[in-house]
């Protein structure tokens, strides 16, 4: 496609000249090797418009984001294309002007704002310094400017707040300070790189609303880089879906979500859970190819459900299929339409008979003298998934760690098949340790990088005397197939695997002990949505085939709907509402539950 005539069909004037940004044929290559990281990126950001840039990790979305500021990370080089801001090409400007332009005209909000704020300078001083640097206002007016900036993002602006350091703010506050700093010089373009990843839904909602409002008020164009389609559905005007360094599909938000045309977009949407109804989630097989390892023809051909021979030979171009809607697929017309309700399954039956295997009564958990969980009681039946949901600090992980015996400062009773469990894993019987398995949130930390996959999965078998030697190896291969890992990875070290593959290894390690209860602590939150979909599908299969019960800790309510039968909503260490998923989510009784539900980003 050509973007040389960016007269938008909906009548918006040409982007250049009246603010906004035009990206033409942008390409970034690795230095040293002629390998494209991203290429052929054409994108227009109109004034006051929020464009969502979505893709899995490794798709090159952050690379595109920073290219707008004329920046590429070490080892990469912006090799072609133009980034036009009011007819000036950011990429060819002398560096002094680029320096001035960054922040002043094109601002960047990083993923981790805590590391972008100076920890040893007070918030107020940082905001004033920023204005000094940019030459905004006078010495007297700058403090007022700082106050106004904070007010705009909904933060307190009294002296006490201005005197705080970054570490004295919450995650959401820090992110909003970063937004205030980005908006202070009144930029024309804003690049946001996953600014809400890691924030609670309520905080996320607040940050997103603030951002959207500011963009619209000041007619700022924003590029919102994220892996979370649900977030994009709530704030973006248009959506660009990136895959393997190219834009796969580009269109207005409503079109993308109602009528996605690219198989990749559809696969992404299929892997996202809905709030309103349970779904059988599916992942996308394989992984995003790295630069240099991308297949010929269509780059998605090795993972695509609609692939034909032609896809392996022909390189598809971005084609306009409807006004403003462009797709990079040669089979657009042949693959039919997509339905958002595809994959919908009945919700878990709330009246199903329950055979309780584990019960928690009056659980109080302490960290030193501080009591963080207050009298929590719930139970878990055979073959059932109970979700613990809450914001960070609600105690959900603390509860799961106590149940798993990883944290031992607790009182109350946890019964497993009627027997009381000891406090720490070490003081429990071998059999109890075997039957309750814990899976950790971050698969990058939970596998020993020095061991091979075989050693990792085999260990519980040896430890619990289930199998050893050749027999154990056979079982490892069997388990790896079960979690959809090829046996070719048997002798790989964990450091060679992707996040999703690592988490599968962690699940296989838990399964190796032949457990009855698995405690899953946010096990999908560090993973891409497509990987999350396949992991959830895997867990659902395990539950049905092996009758394993699961305690599923998450902050994602939509995910709960698809995976769990019962849910416990936690707030500050208390259970505020509990019951079957259908009841709690369709007819919430508590305000807190309602707030959580309404703040959760959704695509349905």
């Amino acid at each position, binding site marked *: 496609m050509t973007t040389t005539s960016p007269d938008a069909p909906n009548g918006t004037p040409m982007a250049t000249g009246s603010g906004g940004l035009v990206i033409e044929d942008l390409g970034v290559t690795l230095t040293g090797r002629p390998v494209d990281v991203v290429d052929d990126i054409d994108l227009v950001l109109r004034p006051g418009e929020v464009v969502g840039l979505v893709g899995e990790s490794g798709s090159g979305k952050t690379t595109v984001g920073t290219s707008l500021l004329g920046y590429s990370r070490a080892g990469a080089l912006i090799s072609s294309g133009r980034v036009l801001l009011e007819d000036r090409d950011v990429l060819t400007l002398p560096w002094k002007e680029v320096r001035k332009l960054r922040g002043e005209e094109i601002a960047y909000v990083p993923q981790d704002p805590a590391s972008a704020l100076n920890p040893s300078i007070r918030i107020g001083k940082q905001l004033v310094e920023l204005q000094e640097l940019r030459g905004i206002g006078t010495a007297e007016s700058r403090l007022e400017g700082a106050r106004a900036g904070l007010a705009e993002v909904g933060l307190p602006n009294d002296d006490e707040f201005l005197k705080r350091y970054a570490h004295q703010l919450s995650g959401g506050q820090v992110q909003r300070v970063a937004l205030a700093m980005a908006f202070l010089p009144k930029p024309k373009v804003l690049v946001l790189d996953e600014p809400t990843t890691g924030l609670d839904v309520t905080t996320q909602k607040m940050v997103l609303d603030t951002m959207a409002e500011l963009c619209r008020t000041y007619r700022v164009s924003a590029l919102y880089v994220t892996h979370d389609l649900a977030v994009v559905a709530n704030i973006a005007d248009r959506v660009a879906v990136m895959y393997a360094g190219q834009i796969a599909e580009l269109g207005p938000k409503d079109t993308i979500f109602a009528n996605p045309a690219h198989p990749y977009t559809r696969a992404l949407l299929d892997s996202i859970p809905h709030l309103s109804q349970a779904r059988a989630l599916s992942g996308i097989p394989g992984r995003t190819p*790295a630069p240099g390892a991308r297949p010929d023809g269509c780059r998605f051909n090795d993972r695509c459900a609609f692939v034909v021979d032609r896809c392996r030979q022909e390189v598809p171009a971005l084609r306009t299929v409807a006004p403003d809607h462009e797709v990079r697929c040669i089979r657009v017309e042949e693959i039919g339409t997509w339905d958002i309700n595809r994959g919908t399954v009945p919700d878990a039956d709330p009246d199903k008979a329950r055979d309780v295997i584990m019960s928690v009564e009056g659980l109080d958990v302490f960290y030193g003298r501080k009591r963080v969980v207050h009298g929590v009681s719930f139970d878990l039946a055979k073959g059932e998934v109970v979700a613990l949901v809450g914001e960070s600090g609600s105690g959900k992980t603390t509860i799961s760690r106590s149940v798993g015996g*990883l944290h031992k400062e607790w009182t109350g009773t946890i019964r497993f098949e009627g027997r009381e469990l000891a406090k720490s894993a*070490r003081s429990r019987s071998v059999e109890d*340790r075997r039957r309750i398995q814990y899976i950790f949130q971050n698969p990058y930390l939970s596998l*020993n990088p*020095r061991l091979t996959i075989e050693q990792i999965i085999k260990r519980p078998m040896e*430890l619990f005397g289930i199998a050893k030697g050749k027999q154990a190896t056979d079982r490892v291969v069997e388990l790896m197939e079960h979690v959809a890992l090829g046996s070719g990875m048997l002798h790989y070290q964990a450091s*060679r695997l992707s*996040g999703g593959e690592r988490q599968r290894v962690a699940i296989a390690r838990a399964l190796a002990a032949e457990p009855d209860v698995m405690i899953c602590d946010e096990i999908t939150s560090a993973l891409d949505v497509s990987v999350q979909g396949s992991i959830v599908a895997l867990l659902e299969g395990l539950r049905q085939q092996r009758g394993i019960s699961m305690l599923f800790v998450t902050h994602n309510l939509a995910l709960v709907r698809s995976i769990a039968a019962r849910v416990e909503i936690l707030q500050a260490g208390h259970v505020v509402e509990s019951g079957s998923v259908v009841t709690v989510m369709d007819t919430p009784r508590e305000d807190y539950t309602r707030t959580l539900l309404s703040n959760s980003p959704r695509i349905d």
Partner: protein
Amino acid sequence: MSATTSSPAAPSFLRRALKQKRFSVGGGVTLLVVLFAIFAPFFAPYGENETTGPPYSPIGVLGTDYLGQDVLSRVMYGGWGVLVISVLATIVGMVLGIAIGVVAAYGGGWWDEVIMRLNDVLLAFPQILLALVVLTALQNPAPWVIIVLVGTSHAPRVARVARGVALGIVSRDFVVAAEALGEKRSRVILAEVLPNMTGPLLAEAGLRLTYSIGIVAALGFLGFAADPGAANWGQMINENRLGLATQPWAVLAPVIMIAIFTIATNLMADGLAQLAQRGE
């Protein structure tokens, strides 16, 4: 953008180390000095205690020393003792120090406090002083005494480093996972924690080797060598220092050898440290 992880097998630590100039130069020179210390005695023109002329005379390549022994031959003989004692002392110090540091980090809480505070007390003494306290009480100390003393004086320093490295590892989930499975504590340390510490510990070992050479040579200079008659680079400096003006080579030759050896091992340690810091 988080990097995709489909990279080919990460090259082994050693292979990456060899690619680094600092390590390969340091390692190469160290190897040469070690080979010299081991094989040179076979090629020495004279015996270790053979008198070849009057004291401090220029007879021979490097002249003679205070007893009229050939300096070149003495230098060729004198490396072995320094080398063996410093390598063994380093090993003793590393093993002791790692054990203390890892146990403190893994034990945590009171264990950590008590062990590390005691460690701090030992750290307050200069290394050589600890060795001298015992050595002055002994006549003709056996080689193993020197090894143990130098090794022990290293231990508190190694323990500090080992604890620091281990602290970052014991809190990782894979260690917690092993705990939850009920692995024996010794196995958690040996199989889960230690293998992830090799990079920084190798660097520390290289550095400790440098210090060992220095201390062993210094002890030799002060007259605390295992065998007073035998050639020893450190001792040679002491023996011949009175003749420095008339026959400087008798002092300079062992000094140069010690300098080359320590610089080389230090370079090697530096290279390893850089590599370990860059991350695995």
